[in-house]
């Protein structure tokens, strides 16, 4: 103790730097500990806090507050994937017609939408809606000391607040991702056949030729993994919010930043693992 204090007096700047590094290290450890606890407590959450779980599933799929007015989470996810699907039509059609292979746009929709665009867009949309909403709720509870009150009442706050949200996120992502994939397919088809006047037969032929069930299932797996990661990150930042009303806002911002990065890195590694060097892709059909 005294040696540490003496060192701090002798080298104030070095000590400060070291403290910053150490704080970061401790935060990382604390985060990992929280994630472990949350995942372990998912069983508790499903068996003991069933009512809360069902309430959260309903609230997440429809959204809360002002977001309900514009149709809730499902509508927002659908809207974002509609716009990226339309992007496939616009970008793909123009780029392909340069080379004279605009007939292959159906293939682009089946290939890029499933592997790349729909999972990433759905992840982004989930982080923005369900995730940020969870941080805002839990953060507000932390600031108004409701979490301490829960602990006093003998309710396990991690299981009750965080694990239930992770479980609910996994349940909610299945229908939401279905809507996302359908919306991106629809937008690409509608854009190509209605605005760029390609015949629907040509589009459908190449689309169904290259649409692979295995890829679709893997893309669902990607969405599930992303939902778990996003909900873990967002509940952590809400659970550890400090510093009054401003602190909740900052926690939401920080959570969105972190979860976007983590989700995209996770998607990258999982898809490298799935598609690897062989690529699961057969031009011959």
């Amino acid at each position, binding site marked *: 103790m005294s040696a540490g204090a003496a060192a701090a007096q002798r080298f104030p700047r070095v000590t400060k730097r070291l403290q910053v590094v150490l704080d970061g290290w401790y935060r990382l450890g604390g985060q990992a500990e929280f994630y472990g606890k949350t995942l372990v407590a998912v069983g508790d959450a499903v068996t003991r806090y069933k009512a809360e779980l069902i309430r959260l599933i309903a609230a997440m799929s429809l959204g809360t507050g002002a977001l309900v007015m514009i149709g809730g989470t499902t509508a927002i996810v659908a809207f974002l994937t509609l716009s990226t699907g339309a992007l496939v039509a616009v970008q793909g059609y123009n780029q392909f017609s340069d080379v004279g292979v605009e007939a292959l746009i159906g293939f682009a929709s089946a290939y890029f939408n499933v592997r790349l665009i729909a999972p990433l867009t759905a992840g*982004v949309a989930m982080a923005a809606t369900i995730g940020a909403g969870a941080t805002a709720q839990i953060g507000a509870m932390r600031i108004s000391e409701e979490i301490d009150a829960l602990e006093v009442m003998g309710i396990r706050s991690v299981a009750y607040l965080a694990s239930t949200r992770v479980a609910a996120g996994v349940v909610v992502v299945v229908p939401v991702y279905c809507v996302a994939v359908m919306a991106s397919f629809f937008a690409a088809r509608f854009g190509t056949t209605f605005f760029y006047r390609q015949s629907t037969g040509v589009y459908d032929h190449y689309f169904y030729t290259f649409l692979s069930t295995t890829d679709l299932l893997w893309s669902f797996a990607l969405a599930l993994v992303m939902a778990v990661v996003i909900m873990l990150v967002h509940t952590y930042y809400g659970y550890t919010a400090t510093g009054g*009303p401003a602190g909740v806002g900052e926690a939401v*911002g920080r959570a969105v930043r972190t979860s976007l*990065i983590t989700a995209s890195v996770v998607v990258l590694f999982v898809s490298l693992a799935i598609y690897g060097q062989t*690529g699961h*892709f057969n031009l011959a059909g």
Partner: protein
Amino acid sequence: MVSTGLVIKPLRGLGGFFAMALDTFVCMFRRPFAWREYLLQTWFVARVSLVPTLFLSIPFTVLTVFTFNVLLVEFGAADFSGTGASLGTVNQTGPIVTVLVVAGAGATAMCADLGARTIRDELDALRVMGINPIQSLVVPRVLAATTVALLLSSLVILVGLAGGFVFSVYFQHVTPGAFVAGMTLITGLSDVVTALIKATLFGLTAGLIACYMGTSVGGGPAGVGNAVNETVVFSFIALFVINVIVTAVGFQVHP
């Protein structure tokens, strides 16, 4: 009663947003311009978005390049992976990552900061002192977001291309010379200009949305959290729509 409230409330919010946007555009050209606040905010937004930019653009581009390369290797045209990388990065990944960073990092931080001031009644205090909060707070923030978005988009594209190069050359064994030679095959100046225009519009819109949500916060800690949440959602929606429209218009202007 309830039903009219449900219909009118979002409309009122939309109207308030456009009113504030109009005020901001008018105040932008009125002296005195808040230079100090503008520089501080530019630095603030750049600081919060720089690290997310680097960390987001690498996985996004590597994913795109990887998906492209699977296709090109199947065709036996792996030498063209530079074409795919620059096409994906400049036209789509670059702008989309800029959207995510500007809306997810810059706008949220800005909204949280403004929302905290609104909660503490600092904006009303400014009004009492005869200072227009739109001129002193909103205009510099919106311009700062626009500036940083424009600068960030070039950084995103550069980092993305570098990431795509490293991944293709060192992991998928594409010839480096062929990669670089293929980069300018389809992608040209008009695509870069379109990407920069997109980024400017993203920054402007995200800044306006963040400032509107931040200045109209109410209801304690939960209110600020919800405002930040709504900022992310609304700016994502607005920016994705802008992206589609500008892409389509860009192809019409420069086919």
